[in-house]
């Protein structure tokens, strides 16, 4: 189960920051930018990066392919 926003809209050049709290060990994978953030069970992890490219980018748990949200980067 995932709770939180399905979609975040940002402008190219913005720094995107959100936190993930997971009950399992896994990696958060920001597709496209191909960034990985390690998740430790029951610990809040901050995901942060600069949105340099436009488009729709999926963020998912790497091993279970569970989609967390989509980041929409526009001009």
């Amino acid at each position, binding site marked *: 189960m995932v709770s939180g926003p399905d979609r975040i809209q940002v402008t190219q050049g913005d720094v995107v920051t959100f936190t993930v709290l997971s009950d399992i060990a896994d990696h958060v994978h920001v597709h496209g930018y*191909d960034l990985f953030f390690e998740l430790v069970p029951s610990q809040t992890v901050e995901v942060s990066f600069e949105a340099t*490219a436009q488009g729709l*980018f999926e963020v*998912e748990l790497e091993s279970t392919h*569970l989609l967390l949200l989509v980041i929409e980067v*526009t001009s």
Partner: protein
Amino acid sequence: MILAHGIGGRLDLPVPVSYFVVGAAFVVVLSFVALAVLWPRPRLQSGPRLSGRAARIPLEGFLAVLGLMALLIVIGQLLPVVFGVNTDPTRPSIAPALVWIVMWLVVPFLAALIGDWYTFINPWRALARATGVGKTERPELLARAGVEPAVLLLIAFTWLELISPRSGDPVMLGVAALAYTVLLMVVMASFGRETGLAVFDFFTPYVRLISAISPLGRDRRGRVRWRGWLRSLPVIPEWPGLWIFVVVMIGTVSYDGASGAVWFRNLVGDFGEGLIGQTVLLFVSVAVIGSAYWLACLAAAMSSDANVSAGVVAQRFAHTLVPIALAYAFAHYFTLVIFEGQQLLAAISDPFALGWDLFGSASRRVDFFITAAEPIWYVQVGSIVVGHVLGVVLAHDRALFDFGGDAVRSQYAMLTLMVALTSLGLFILAG
């Protein structure tokens, strides 16, 4: 909750409604202009006449080795599992890039320019040649079964790509590639190399159809010569199941585009989130495109004095949808090729995700050198419109040939279909 696509890190931003409206209006106007100004006698039906200088391109052996290596790398993804070695899931994986980008997109896209190079890079033909499998051809199978078995395998393949939750999993791709290799070796041994590939290897008719757009052909001695754009499409053999194959090409891409769109998700609700729901919707998409095409063919058959059935018309006009199918695929996937394709450069240094760095490129990231929305939208809308125009031209020429004096009347239905397909293609991009 929303479900993830297995491949493709970055998706294109939806095309704005204004682009959609302008593109669709263009298509309607162009179509009616076409009816008025296009030639009154068939010009494309006699097939290509090769001209110009003949060139022999000595790459056949090289391409065969390249194809075979790619296949072995994909199947080789099973080796770490067999030997119980841990792989690093954060490494860019070579197998999805080879299967979903190179094989599925680059090979056909390039074939539209340079002709049917898949013939040479086809790893299964190379494998059969190397092992002496399938020397005795039984061409009667192609006449009887046509591409119907290939239709089923094409649907299975797109299911793996678009619906399977493991589409990006190298191990799954290794298993699938191994199973496909065994299947093709068995059918080539039973029916002959060329017959087995033509009937079962769906890449073969897929690339063959798209490569018929290419202006380059080969003469009897295998030398490359100029034949002119689109010239080979009207003389593509009407294998049984041809029109269904082309409909599946369009229907599956439509499903992929639509399933990412907000309106589609609102329409299907929770049903579109389960595996069964998605599978049903994939078939529904194909069925919708197929029914629309069938109805257009029925209308064309009824409006003509010639006594033909809708089924015959469907086969006779199947090739006219090929540029539209290519345009759909290109509009949806060209950014995937230029961005995700770069994964290959990193993955080639570490093909089994074991932490290697063979060529010093393992840590290379995708370079999003241009993601500005407008140029991408222009290419998307432009390719759909061009695909439509080529489809109209081909259908016009075929109608003149088959229906003679009734050509224009028989064209109304086909033209309506093509305007509808094109508008649908644009509408999906506007997701």
